[in-house]
């Protein structure tokens, strides 16, 4: 193993790790937004809206994320959507993981005993009040761990955007392999950095989960 080389290229990888972190954070935020909207649609009173929610989930879970990304980045300009690679990466991955998060969030909501909604409605709360003050606070606690699983998948999924040349960890490894012919060292560094990001995120989620647990 070429330690000297590793020390030399290491700063570039740290920089790339920042890009991966930014991608992950923005994708998580977009994913949660899409997931919340998707879950609201899936649970809507209106059949049309439920259908749209289901269609969103089926499409994004039923096709490869890479194809979705290519469709957006390479196909987008053809229909007037011009995005730089980073933007396309965030939007493509965020909307994709949002479909998974839709199911996670919906699962958390429907896991709450229906007696809770009934008790709230019986007191005179509206559908929304019952959701906001009774169902969601309980469902949110149930969702933290499964959303953590989605986020874990999403962080690893950011590697896909190397294919549209966003300079993140995977792309950086590939670029240095081109000039150094040392794939083992390069992929090892990016692997370790991915692991660090995922480890810290996992700890954060476990902490959050413990903190909000109901007595």
């Amino acid at each position: 193993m070429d330690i000297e080389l590793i020390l030399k290229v290491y700063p570039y990888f740290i920089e790339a790790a920042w890009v991966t972190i930014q991608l992950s954070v923005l994708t998580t935020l977009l994913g949660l937004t899409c997931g919340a909207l998707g879950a609201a649609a899936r649970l809507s009173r209106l059949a049309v809206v439920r259908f749209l929610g289901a269609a969103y989930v089926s499409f994004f879970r039923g096709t490869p994320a890479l194809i979705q990304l290519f469709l957006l980045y390479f196909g987008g300009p053809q229909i007037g959507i011009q995005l730089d690679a980073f933007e396309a990466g965030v939007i493509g991955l965020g909307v994709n993981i949002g479909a998974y998060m839709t199911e996670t969030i919906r699962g958390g909501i429907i896991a709450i005993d229906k007696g809770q909604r009934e008790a709230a409605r019986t007191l005179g709360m509206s559908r929304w009040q019952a959701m906001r003050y009774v169902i969601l606070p309980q469902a949110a606690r149930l969702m933290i761990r499964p959303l953590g699983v989605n986020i874990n998948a999403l962080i690893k999924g950011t590697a896909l955007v190397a294919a549209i040349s966003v300079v993140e960890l995977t792309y950086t490894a590939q670029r240095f392999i081109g000039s150094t012919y040392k794939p083992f060292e390069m992929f090892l560094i990016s692997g370790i950095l991915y692991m660090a990001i995922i480890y810290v995120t996992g700890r954060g989620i476990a902490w959050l989960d413990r903190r909000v647990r109901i007595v």
Partner: protein
Amino acid sequence: MTEKPFVDIRHAQKSFGSLEVLKDINLQVSRGQIVAIIGPSGSGKSTLLRAINDLDPLTGGEVWLEDTQVNKKLPHRQYEKHINQVRQDIGMVFQHFNLFPHLTVRENIKLAPKMLKGLSDAEADKLAEEQLDKVGMLERIDYYPSQLSGGQKQRVAIARALAMKPKVMLFDEATSALDPELVEEVNLVMKKLAEEHMTMIIVTHEMGFAESVCDRVLFMDQGVVVEEGPPDVIFRNPTNERTRNFLRKHLANANK
């Protein structure tokens, strides 16, 4: 003098798909009256009770509370507004308590009055304390539901319903999920409400309790009211064969 009914159920009909669960039920309850509904499992007792606050909407017939039709036909948005208002006047207690587990006892009680009646935090606190005192649960005000016994949970659930100052209280087997030794504490609370002339409709399997507390008993079977009358008549001298059979079986089971 015949007083106009306080709760008036007229020709109530309910089907789940092709299954007709309530068949032309009529029930008039006057103010302060306490009515027990008894009957075998699946006879439609809960469905009838849940029709009163439109939790299980009827497929036919009308429910009135004083001068308001509970299940009146309105466009969706208006109906939601209407029903949310009406439900504030109809307290309901469930077999499984349905306390909000993420909130303390205090918060369970304060939530709806603050949100729906615009009470200040201090007013809501005072209200919660009053209602908990009434059900003998004041010392547990800052506990979470998971820290209470079943009987205590049910007493808190009753306090939560009472905090909305309802005109009528509905009980759906309030003591069925409790260990036998915890039943009495809940029954005592219900008796106290009876003494205060709260209008109550009580679905129960406890014949002794029904007999001692209620003014009237309805026996339901297969979606119809088979027989109704004062408790001593229904329990001591039922005229209908089905009522007699039910009570005999029930007594046999209770003595096992």
